[in-house]
């Protein structure tokens, strides 16, 4: 694989890969990436400001060797939407949980389908069921529900 792997990121002695990726992210994006934590071996969590999600993902794929986008899930809370990206690295056997928050009245976030093609349908699904709008998505249409449906069924205010 040609992609720069996480092993090539400058390492300090005694660091495990989870800490290394968190440090690399924190150094590249000191303002927007926060709350980095290692949940269990192989699973890392970090919070990203929604304005920077595209650039973070670009760095993750190109420089840190995260070549696989596993899942995009949207969770609705009382005051916010959380868009959770699970991004996996095949080489260093890591799973990164990136959480990006949007306010309730403006559920908009940058599309990352130009970075990982696999994000295309998952973003459409999030739009369809939760109403998250992904900017500059090539074809942001409903995918599971019919085209003329007016609601987003996974929102908590939707009752059967």
């Amino acid at each position, binding site marked *: 694989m040609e992609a720069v792997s996480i092993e090539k990121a400058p390492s300090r002695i005694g660091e495990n890969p989870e800490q290394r990726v968190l440090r690399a992210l924190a150094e590249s994006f000191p303002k927007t990436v926060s709350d980095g934590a290692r949940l269990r071996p192989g699973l890392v969590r970090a919070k990203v400001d929604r304005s920077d999600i595209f650039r973070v993902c670009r760095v993750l794929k190109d420089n840190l060797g995260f070549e696989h986008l596993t899942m995009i*899930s949207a969770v609705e809370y009382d005051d916010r939407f959380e868009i959770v990206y699970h991004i996996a690295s*095949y080489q260093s056997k890591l799973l990164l949980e990136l959480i990006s928050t949007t306010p309730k009245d403006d559920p908009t976030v940058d599309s990352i389908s130009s970075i990982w093609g696999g994000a295309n349908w998952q973003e459409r699904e999030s739009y369809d069921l939760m109403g998250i709008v992904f900017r500059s998505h090539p074809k942001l249409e409903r995918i599971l529900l019919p085209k003329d449906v007016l609601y987003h069924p996974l929102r908590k205010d939707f009752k059967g």
Partner: protein
Amino acid sequence: MAEMWINMGPQHPMTHGLWNLRVKVDGETIVDAEPEVGYLHRGIEKICEGLTYPQIIPITDRLCYGSSLTWSHLYCQSVEDLMGVEVPERAEYIRVMAIEMQRIASHLMWLAAYAGDLGMSVGFTYTMRDREVFVDLLQALTGSRLTYNYPRIGGVAHDLPPNFDRDSIRAVDYMEGRLKEYEDLFEGSKIFMMRNVGIGLLRKEDALNLGVTGPSLRASGVSYDLRKDMPYSVYPEMDFEVATLDDGDCYARYRVRMDEMWESCKIVRQALQKMPKGRWRMVSPRNAPAGTGLGRVEDPRGEAVMYVVGDGSDKPYRLKIRSPIFVTVSAAPKILVGYKLADVVAIMGGLDMCIGENDR
């Protein structure tokens, strides 16, 4: 020649379920393709928000008719992660054994459907016949033939029935003999090779980029299996190999699945051998704490993930399911273009569609 759109679906023998593949053909050559899914959308994620944690287990069985056990296992694993439940070791071994049996059964069902797609009835009936052996075993273990409802939060529902070890070893021996027969039946036939070698090429870069997982990814040359690379349950104790092939054509996908069946037979033997005595189930808590739980397993069709958000009550706040097929299907247009109309069935059959989990 004039180009035209052909709807292959929603009711079509190729679809194995209910979805629509619109292909644009020039004569018999495919110019463009566009999958349309959602015909089987039941809103399982929404249903789960209204049910308590134990009640969801039979619902997750309905995600995929081919490998329902894997999905309920995945659900239990993610909820155990959320609740912090320790699973008894015997239960983990039983789970791994049952999942591998389910994997064999699922791959056999895939092989049957694939043979049916290629017009090979003999492949269909023989594989379905031999799948029955494992379905019978799972029935003796779990009490049902298709929707097993077997894993529980904190263990499994039942202990092994009497004589189960003997029957399983016998079934695995039988299966290994049968796999040789399949190799004669499929690869020994020139026509099968003509239909498969070099068809539906999916290159490594495309497979990585489009998020294809599971046997299709391994057939494209990426040796990545969650059972090996991010092991869960008691897979670290098991000795098996990850089946990988370099050329991403239909034949490689077929071959990877056949090899996986061999490896699964090995795992079933080892699990039965190493299985400790003891309890198989713990009392599961009623309420989950506020927080998130993540389960990630290697489904027969790829990487399946469940993400559970708990809010302190006895019902999940949000349950997100990542279906491997949902992402794999989105890669279909990339694979299909340039091949003949008859190759559509070979390619889509080779991806192992399962609409239940795709539409949720």
